[in-house]
């Protein structure tokens, strides 16, 4: 627009756009990161307010990140540890998804499940599940099996709850429609309740993908083994704080990858859930 002289310019009401709305998101994120790293650098390397054993400087951490990254890329011992942890995480996730979905269907779809099984599940869910770690190690040994069991145990419950909720998500109208069409219970389950419940189920899977990571690392802390968790504990016991930081960072990449894998699958499967749908099922 060209600026045309307005005789009554002082009466024009112009929307004021806040600064944060005018800068792009990536710039805001980058800016915040720079500020935080700047303060971090000031507190450690420049002024020495914090001991390097407690908090290494950004430079040290960055150097160690490069070192660990090089080790991972060249297939060093850390890659082996990462692979062990990845396998454990994937096994735990698959097992949690399988058991969680099955129990969710049982609880969400059957009266028996709702009345008899659900109270026990709620009771177990309120327990601090990490406290079971020594039991799993005693039962399954120091290999990955005990870590898989602990992580799956932690991650199963959100999937159960969300699956059960998902199977209740179909509206009264939709149920009536299927009843009026003479649909069998199985048809209603597969053609209506499962697709309607998918967004809920995926929410449970996303929560589980985070829970699985926590479970596996806890298992590796407590039960040793050859995974990343054991490496972190070792480095921490040698007061190698930069190493702990960089290992956690690479570990978080594994968690992110799993989370986005689930999110990607959701986008593909629940393709209809992106926009509001005035004509469809509200």
């Amino acid at each position: 627009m060209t600026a045309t002289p307005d005789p009554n310019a002082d009466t024009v009401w112009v929307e004021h756009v806040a600064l944060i709305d005018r800068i792009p998101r990536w710039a805001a994120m980058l800016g915040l990161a720079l500020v935080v790293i700047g303060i971090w650098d000031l507190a450690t390397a420049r002024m020495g307010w914090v001991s390097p054993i407690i908090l290494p400087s950004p430079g040290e951490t960055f150097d160690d990140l490069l070192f660990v990254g090089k080790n991972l890329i060249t297939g060093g011992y850390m890659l082996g540890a990462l692979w062990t942890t990845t396998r454990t995480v994937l096994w735990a996730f698959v097992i949690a998804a399988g058991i969680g979905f099955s129990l969710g269907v049982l609880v969400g779809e059957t009266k028996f499940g709702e009345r008899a099984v659900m109270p026990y599940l709620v009771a177990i869910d309120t327990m601090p599940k990490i406290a079971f770690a020594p039991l799993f190690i005693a039962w399954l040994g120091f290999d990955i099996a005990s870590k898989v069991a602990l992580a799956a145990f932690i991650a199963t419950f959100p999937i159960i709850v969300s699956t059960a909720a998902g199977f209740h998500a179909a509206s009264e109208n939709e149920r009536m429609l299927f009843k009026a069409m003479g649909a069998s219970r199985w048809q209603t389950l597969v053609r209506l309740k499962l697709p309607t419940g998918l967004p809920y189920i995926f929410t449970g899977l996303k929560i589980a993908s985070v829970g699985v990571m926590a479970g596996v690392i806890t298992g590796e802390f407590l039960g040793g083994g050859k995974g990343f968790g054991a490496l972190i504990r070792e480095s921490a016991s040698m007061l190698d704080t930069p190493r702990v930081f960089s290992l956690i960072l690479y570990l978080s990449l594994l968690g992110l990858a799993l989370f986005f894998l689930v999110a990607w699958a959701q986008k593909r499967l629940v393709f209809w859930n992106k926009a509001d749908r005035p004509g469809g099922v509200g």
Partner: protein
Amino acid sequence: MSMAEPRPLTASPAAVLRPVYQIERLSKTYARNLLTALTDVNLTLHKGEFVSVVGSSGCGKSTLLKIMSGLLPPTTGRVVLEGKPVTGPRADIGMMFQQATLLPWKTTVENIVLPIEIRQGRAAAKAAIPRALDLLRLVGLGDFAHVYPGELSGGMAQRASICRMLIANPAVLLLDEPFSALDELTRDFMNMELQRICAEQHSTAFLVTHSLAEAVILSDRILVMKPRPGRIVEEIVIDLPRPRTLEMVNTPRFGQIVAHIRDLLGKEAFQ
């Protein structure tokens, strides 16, 4: 059919005098709270006839519709469609609800053949697609066959649900306040569309509605129901000529009929 005609019939000339749906001495009591939802309901729908039921909330019209659709068993009474007693949901009963309830993961045409898919399997549903496309053209949605319901407006979604109701060639159409969720202009338009479609298909239709104007403009007969206990208190034959137009709303006759029904229902409301 040896059943006696319940009332003298002076319906529209379009109605051939063949009974399609017959209900005799129907009653429904909800045992749990001893509520008599319906008592002594008698009703006959003839081929090609459009009958509406109006009444305040709780007069039992929804219960009546659920019994007629086979979703709810009556306590006593005869419910007979095309000579066979209704004992559950049937393929020859077409239903339409207040919400379009299209499944968002199926395209419009897939939604329309859904009743066929549920009753006869995927192969039969596939075979029914040409007919579904014909129906979509009938309601003016020919270009929207392969889009997902999320891209349809409220009125378009309800037109698609009309097609879903018609796909199995039902003997009777049961309409449960089908356009009450739409805005007024769309609703008027949809009512005229419904009239046209019913005339083209020679449908026998039964409409439950809150709107007196809608009932008068569409119906050959209107049944007025009152609650506690739910019963039909009067049957009004609408003698406005067909095809009906929206302009008829402004005629004196239309006003008389609406005023009469409002009077009937209004008296009850203050009792």
